[in-house]
């Protein structure tokens, strides 16, 4: 079996270049590639386009890359709770392409699956539809959306094997599987890396064919944005 293992995050990001298109798995701060983001912060990169459902917070996740002015453009569905983001956007330093969340997920899925365009009802009658082709199918209006692909996709999984097969945990799965397929070079960081053959083939969420590099990450913070508890059962 092909071995995709590399040593660490530094090696993982070695060839990331300025003005590249990058994808980052995660929803909020859950399931984000913490190790790779840290490694990217160590590099002198500018003009990046980042595809990510959210933009992190001021002091964690992609928020840190924004702070370092590495990002030219964000393609996201929700970018609230980030003061630095707001400042850069209002000052014109940062460009943002807001995309409905389901459309974003599907555009990325389409990029990985070789579907250059598809029709969705999301955004009909709104500013999202401006400049896009509108068409009626079976009596309902839809707009055409294009695929999204990336030069590098950064993926965070729970377990992975040396062949690049990945298993996610809980809702930390989110955008990771589609992005894994949509990256020209897909880099997976995992909490536990095992030899090929130890994961049940029936339980793989992302087949290794999509993953070019894999390494075991460390020091995961897994910050919680809205720590919400109940007193009762749970």
């Amino acid at each position, binding site marked *: 079996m092909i071995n995709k293992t590399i040593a660490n995050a530094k090696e993982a990001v070695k060839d990331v270049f300025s003005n590249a298109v990058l994808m980052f798995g995660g929803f909020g701060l859950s399931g984000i590639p913490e190790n790779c983001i840290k490694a990217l912060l160590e590099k002198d990169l500018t003009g990046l386009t980042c595809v990510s459902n959210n933009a992190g917070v001021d002091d964690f996740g992609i928020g840190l890359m924004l702070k370092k002015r590495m990002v030219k453009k964000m393609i996201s569905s929700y970018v*609230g709770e980030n003061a630095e983001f707001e400042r850069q956007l209002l000052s014109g330093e940062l460009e943002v392409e807001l995309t*409905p969340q389901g459309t974003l*997920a*599907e555009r990325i*899925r389409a990029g990985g699956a070789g579907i250059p365009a598809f029709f969705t*009802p*999301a955004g009909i009658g709104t500013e999202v539809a401006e400049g896009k082709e509108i068409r009626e199918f079976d009596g309902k209006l839809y707009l055409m959306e294009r695929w999204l692909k990336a030069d590098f996709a950064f993926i965070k999984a729970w377990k992975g094997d040396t062949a690049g097969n990945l298993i996610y945990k809980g*809702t930390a799965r989110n955008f990771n599987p589609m992005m894994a397929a949509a990256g020209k070079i897909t880099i997976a960081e995992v909490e536990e890396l095992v030899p090929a053959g130890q994961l049940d083939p029936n339980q793989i969420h992302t087949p290794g064919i999509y993953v070019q590099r894999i390494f075991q990450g460390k020091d995961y913070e897994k910050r919680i944005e809205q720590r919400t*508890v109940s007193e009762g059962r*749970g």
Partner: protein
Amino acid sequence: MLNKNQIAQRIAREVKNGQYINLGIGIPTLVANYIPDDLEVVLQSENGLLGIGPFPTEEKIDPDLINAGKQTITMVNGSALFSSAESFGMIRGGHVHLTILGAMEVSENGDIANWKIPGKMVKGMGGAMDLVASAENIIVAMQHCSKDGQSKLLKECTLPITGIRCVKKIVSDLAVLEILPEGGFKLLERAPGVSVEEIKSKTEGKLVVEGEIPEMVF
């Protein structure tokens, strides 16, 4: 006038046995507290979970298990986890029976505006545009008027639209209203102590009043 919890409580009466439901952030999240125990329903979280349980105890908090509002949650027996593409496939494909979400404005033909205020920082639409474009039944939880007394139930929305001709029902602090297929807010129920006249005066869009309008009971 209903408070937030009462709005949630009233919306919970719309829930039917066997439904899969997506609850938006804010008042809609509170609806879960009022769904009768004898109804079997499943709550969907669009970030990839069917079967949202109660908030966790301190010991059971798991950063890998959050809802669409980024709150820590738990799962019920029979839950399933999946990707965002699968999740919005479910939503777009009409598999979710009921969507409950908040709104800044609703028009008399069912247009909804809830994602953007010109001049204010744009946070993004998240999954709202997918939800309103896809759900077969959409109930909106909202305040009938703005803080300065302007009606939010309008002939036409003034804010940027989230979706068109999609809202089926509104539960505001003043009333329960149905959007008629031909357009217009049909008044179904009044909040306790609120008169039809008050609702009329606070509804800019076409209000349809037929017969006696019952008062809600809590």
